């Protein structure tokens, strides 16, 4: 059962990923990304990460992607035009990417067989376990991350302020 679910949602994820890269209009890419995140959430559930799956859907797909969509709307971004040079990426990008994939495949294939399988329900981590670990072992990173979020908020406000001022005046 797990296997089938995995295959289905993995295919969906890859398809959405390809769609993201290929779409001409940014809003299409945004929707594809939401699709990817959704399938990934299911895969997290298969991996026994209940809390993470929920957070993925709520925060990532629900907040961040919504932010993206809003910005695309705000900027009224249209379809991508053809103009612009890009010599390194065209020239080097494709071969490099191929090599990259190749190396990854090689490495994975080397260590693949030794890794065994994953069964649903073998190791479930819920909010309790994450909370315990987060507030005991990883307390410092937790607090620091909260400061980081604060800084991000401040940064975003400062950057967007001029627009607000201009609007108000």
């Amino acid at each position, binding site marked *: 059962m797990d296997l089938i679910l995995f295959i289905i949602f993995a295919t969906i994820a890859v398809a959405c990923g390809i769609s993201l890269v290929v779409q001409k209009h940014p809003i299409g890419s945004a929707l594809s990304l939401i699709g990817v995140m959704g399938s990934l959430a299911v895969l997290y559930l298969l991996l026994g990460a209940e809390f993470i799956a929920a957070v993925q859907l709520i925060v990532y797909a629900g907040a961040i992607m919504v932010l993206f969509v809003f910005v695309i709307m705000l900027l009224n971004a249209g379809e991508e035009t053809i103009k612009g040079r*890009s*010599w*390194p990426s065209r020239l080097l*990008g494709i071969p490099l*990417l191929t090599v990259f994939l190749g190396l990854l495949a090689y*490495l994975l294939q*080397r*260590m693949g067989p*030794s890794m065994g399988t994953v069964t649903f329900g073998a190791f479930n981590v819920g909010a309790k376990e994450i909370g315990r670990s987060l507030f005991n072992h990883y307390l410092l990173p937790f607090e620091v991350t909260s400061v980081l979020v604060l800084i991000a908020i401040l940064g975003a406000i400062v950057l967007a302020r001029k627009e607000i001022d201009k609007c108000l005046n």
Partner: protein
Amino acid sequence: MPNQPDLQLWLILFFPLLGALINGTIGRRLSKGLISTIAIGSVALSFLWVARALSELGQLETPHIERYFTWISSGDLKIGFDLSIDRLSSIMLLVVTGVGTLIHVYAVGYMDHEEGFWRFFSYLNLFMFFMLILVLAQNFLLLFVGWEGVGLCSYLLIGFYFLEKYAGDAAKKAFIVNRVGDFGFSLAVLLMVVHFGSLDMTQVFAAAKKMPLEESGGVLTAIALLLVVGACGKSAQVPLYVWLPDAMAGPTPVSALIHAATMVTAGVYVVARSSEVFLKAPVAMDVVAVIGLVTAVVAALIGTAQNDIKKVFAYSTVSQLGFMFLGLGVGAFSAGIFHVVTHAFFKALLFLGAGSVIHALHGEQDLSNMGGLRSKIPITYWTLMIGAVAIAGVWPFAGFHSKDAILLAAHAHSPWMYWVGVVTAGLTAFYVFRAIFLCFFGTYRGKAHPHESPAIMYMPLVILALLSVAGGYLPVMEWLAPLYPAHEQPHDMTLILISVAFAFAGIFMAYYVYILNPGSADGYAKSLGGVYRAIAGKFFVDEAYDAAIVHPLEQGSRTVLMNGFEEVIVEGGVNATVAVTRWGGGFLRLLQAGNIRSYAVYILLGAVIFLGVMATNGGAR
């Protein structure tokens, strides 16, 4: 083993050092009165401390040594900061601090109108510090510290008027010529370390004394000769005397203190201290005597033709130092030291008096612009006259006793030395009185309004004059007798009378030429023709050095080092580095395309390399 009682000898050094530091750091903001008090006070305190130490030490049969701390400890060689007083250094200490105090007092008056008052006294105190280290040192390395230090202070003080080019040049000349001598001294020190394993004077001299004559010849002669090289530099003997006349560029008190009474006698002091070494190296002794004699004669001859009053006395100093060396060379060490003492008195007097004359004439130093000052500056006149009589060697003044001790010893060694010495004594009398007559007699040829010096200047002159009169009766030679093998020279009345006769002859000749027949000097000079020109040109020694040594060095330096090495290798190297860096930077700059996507490619490239390394190294387990 250090002796008790502990006399805190270091304080003798400390007072002048303290004075130098105070005046050197905050002197700029102090009043002249305060600077003078600190300067004079520090030297006076040194003098009093010396007196106190000597009064407590009494007879000083054995040296009183105080060891403070180990300065160098390298393998077997241990050198400590050790000070000592013995009979020889006690005399030097009294002379240095005593005459030093008088000159400091005089200098307060002389330098009153000069810029850098505080700097002068700081340097002067610093000089006293180093000179006292030199005298008190118990080992040769510490002595060398003092040796170099006085050379430094000499440089600083000669070049005191540093805004004048000739002063800077003179200072450099003094330092460089001294350096040649110092090189010899350092080699001697190294030889001592190699051969004796120690630089402590007691140990070295004891070892030298024990060495049999056959075995000792080579090493001890080498050490002795190298010490002589150093002494020639410091005490201005042939061929390293050329710096002393030019050193007159410094203020007159400097000439009096450093280049008459104290620093230049350092060479004599070292040779006398190392008498054990020299006594085992007869060749070196002969060399010393001959050098001394040659120097005495040559300098006396040059002195007869000088027109600058300070230069006359400078050459006189060189000549008198030659006498001291002669005394040392013929084995009369105590006579040589005796002459150091008396010379300190009358030469300091002569220089300070000359300074008084220069001060009276507002800076005039040329004898041809003087004359008839007898009535105008009487105290200066009388004290200078006493000094001149003393140096001429007329009984019963100081110079007579010491010079005759030397001449008698010379006669006992080799009669020809005596005769040359006696003729030189006559020349001495001649040139000194020539200066006196040209300066104080006749009519005044200058344009200034001479006035007598203030009391602060003429009081030291008076004291020194008294010492020049009575100094001959100081029991210096008796005090030093236990240190040196008994040198009983017969009290040969004939020889003494001959020397006095030569002295009077010299005085009379000067009187004849300059008083009885004024203006006849030029006639005599012309009739002597080439000889006179050679003398007046100082035998062209400076020019010879210039052509043989200075000029080739300069040229060689310019072509080889400056044009060759400096420009090609050093500058070329630097420029090449710059060019390479610039080219490299220009190349790397192309990577900064400003294009975000190319950055992404580079990041990906990095990731690929990383993965590649991982894959080739066995990958993940």
